């Protein structure tokens, strides 16, 4: 078996610990701080225990695009169906069960109704009361069936598609389309969504980031200031690149993933993160996940965590099951720790996180990380 499995431990880790909402932090995170802003030692902040699920455990496919953790359930969207972990067992949902299409790219939960919204490459599905309802471009107001992002704001389900942004008012049963025709969007290719208080942010492929004021129904665009694809003219002058892949907001910080690095916007100024000048694992950022004032970053070459001062990068060794944890401090010091187990694969596609838990969707399975005993320092660490 190529990947690490420990179903007993996984079940224990998943359900023995209660989920804790990240508290709001008042100021910039201290060096070595945890996601809650409190100073912690390295051993308290790094995730050293990893458990991986694959098809051998009941997943629909090892290629996992997205993950969502509910109170007592874990959902995984793969290229061959939707899977749910409940009571330690995986159940796979397919088209036969009512899922609109087997390629599941994104998931969102309605806090009001508890409904699970499922974005696929063949339409939108809603899982409610054990039943799937399907919405597609032929039988609803959904603008396009190829869906990349979802978020639920009250009664509104926002859907990012290849041809624009659709908003479904669940109560009114009505749809509205937002695209380059009626907003400031440079292009209608919408790939990621996130909420901030009163705001919605959209990652627009080739169009940077668009901010939507939900109350005023106004739109604002953030673009790469140099307007040249091949360069970043000045560091921290704005969004690093117009080709954006993911957005996530928490505690005053908007994080933007691109295939050319990562950007952070605090409402006033931008900060850029590239793999040569920070601890970012790779410039090819598939997904960002804000948590408190920190961020998890899923790249094509590992999983990163940045708390405002310290970068922690998790990678699996080529032959597994172990890996390394590279910790880079703000002052330039760096340590590499060895871990007995690691994420399923370094190609990270989706993320979900809580204070003491992170779920990592990868190209070779779904991994669950938690904190544990301090790993040993590996050779080559420190400088």
């Amino acid at each position, binding site marked *: 078996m190529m990947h690490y499995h420990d179903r007993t431990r996984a079940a224990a880790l998943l359900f023995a610990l209660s989920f804790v909402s990240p508290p709001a932090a008042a100021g910039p995170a201290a060096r070595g701080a945890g996601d809650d802003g409190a100073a912690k030692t390295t051993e308290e902040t790094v995730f050293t225990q990893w458990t991986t699920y694959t098809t051998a455990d009941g997943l629909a496919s090892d290629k996992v695009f997205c993950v969502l953790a509910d109170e007592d359930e874990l959902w995984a969207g793969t290229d061959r169906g939707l899977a749910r972990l409940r009571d330690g067992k995986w159940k796979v949902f397919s088209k036969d069960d009512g899922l609109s*299409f087997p390629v599941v790219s994104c998931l969102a939960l309605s806090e009001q109704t508890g409904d699970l919204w499922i974005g696929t490459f063949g339409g939108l599905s809603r899982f409610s009361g054990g039943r799937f309802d399907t919405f597609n471009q032929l039988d609803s107001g959904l603008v396009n069936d190829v869906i990349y992002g979802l978020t639920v704001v009250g009664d509104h389900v926002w859907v990012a598609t*290849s041809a624009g942004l659709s908003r479904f008012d669940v109560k009114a049963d009505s749809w509205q389309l937002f695209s380059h025709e009626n907003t400031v969007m440079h292009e209608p290719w919408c790939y990621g969504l996130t909420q901030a208080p009163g705001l919605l942010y959209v990652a627009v492929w080739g169009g940077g980031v668009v901010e939507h004021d939900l109350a005023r129904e106004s739109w604002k665009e953030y673009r790469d200031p140099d307007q040249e694809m091949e*360069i970043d003219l*000045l560091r921290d002058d704005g969004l690093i690149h117009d080709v954006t892949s993911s957005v996530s907001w928490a505690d005053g910080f908007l994080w933007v993933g691109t295939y050319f690095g990562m950007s952070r916007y605090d409402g006033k100024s931008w900060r850029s993160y590239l793999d*040569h000048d920070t601890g970012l694992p790779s*410039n090819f950022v598939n997904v960002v996940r804000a948590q408190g004032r920190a961020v998890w970053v899923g790249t094509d070459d590992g999983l990163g965590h940045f708390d405002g001062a310290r970068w922690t990068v998790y990678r699996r060794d080529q032959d597994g099951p172990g890996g390394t944890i590279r910790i880079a401090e703000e002052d330039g010091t760096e340590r590499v720790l060895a871990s007995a187990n690691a994420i399923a694969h370094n190609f990270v596609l989706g993320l979900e996180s809580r204070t003491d838990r992170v779920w990592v969707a990868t190209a070779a399975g779904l991994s669950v990380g938690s904190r544990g005993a301090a790993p040993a320092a590996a050779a080559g660490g420190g400088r």
Partner: protein
Amino acid sequence: MSARAFRPAGTARLLSVAALLLAAVATGAPQDAGGQGYTEQGTYAGTPEAFVPYRHSGPVYWHFYEAPPPFRGTGRLTAPPTGLRSIKIGLIAPLEDTADTDIGRSMYQGVTLAIEEANRADGFRGVLPYALAVRNDSGIWGASSNTFVELAWRDDVWAVIGSVDGNTTHTVLRVALKAELPIVNTACTDPTVTETAIPWILRCYPDDRQYGYRLARAVFMERGHERVAVLRANDKYGRMGVKEFTDAARRIGHPLALEVRYLPGEQVFERQLERIRRAKVDAVVLWSNAQDGARILAAMHAAGMEHEVFGTERLVSAAFLAQAGAASEGVVAVCPMNVEETNAAWDDFRARYSQSFGDEPDAFAAYSYDGTRILLDAFERAGLNRVRIRDELAALETYEGLAGPMTFDPTHNNLGQIHVFEVQGGRFVHVAGP
């Protein structure tokens, strides 16, 4: 093939980094600025020095596209499936209900000829025939992503060829990243298509950067014009295409006097032509397809406008000459190959093509044939594994095609060789090389 010309590392690059760092310190710039550049391998996309953006602004903080984007995902060990009866390849091209059906037909015929010839030579490794799954590119937002999903997950194709439209190509590329399906593009000129860092595309057809640079040289440097207007299609082709020409013109001291748009398919151009006349320009650059360009030229001709007119590669076609008639005389256009050149391989291809389809091949047909051959060669080397097929395409550095020599940059984009033609006596005559 030869060794890749673009290397991201090495002594020369380290020296250039050191030199730039020293320069940054000397000028008081931040020490981490300008950490790399194109000193070793020249400018990005072969951009002439005079056209390089921000070249007077000091060190650029970071240059992207210096190294080929890797694919670090899984799949290289995936075994080929059993029970296959053919190797399916997808083709997305504008074949009906669009203004680009001429291009689509050329693409289809070029691809078809390459596949038929491969099958007559016993197909994939002598054991399986290739088959084409053809889809129309309607150019409608979103439709192409649905089409690509069908090809990837319903038709189970091993790779896709296409398309022309920049919107279509971008949307299918984004799906390709999830589907992990190689794309060979043989007709799209939107420069940004290969500038997304998605490692699943190879484009063999030169893009509008190259046409823009070559046109700027022809218009301002070779023909000495100073005040120029652009009349362009108000669509993605016109919007993205004209950018590099406009930027290049500005960077050499000739900012456009006027940029005016028309809607694709528009029949009357009085409003646009009046604005051009008032701008008192001495040349007009058309960024249009053949049909629109022919109508514009006819309108200019009827209005007595005698400006020298320049155009993109889409004008270099029999359809344009037939429709524009006498109004096309003197039009100067760029083309990604020298269709006048005579050599045995091209002559033989023309004969085979004409025999199969009853008409003459154009650049789109030639590039589509070449792109298909590149893909089939990758199949032969890689076997039936999508990631390995991608790896083979990504490893391609140069290729001697029927359309001419190809040089792929780190974004897997053929920089090509752009020629200049002029309509003389009712036909396009080669007047300048790359």
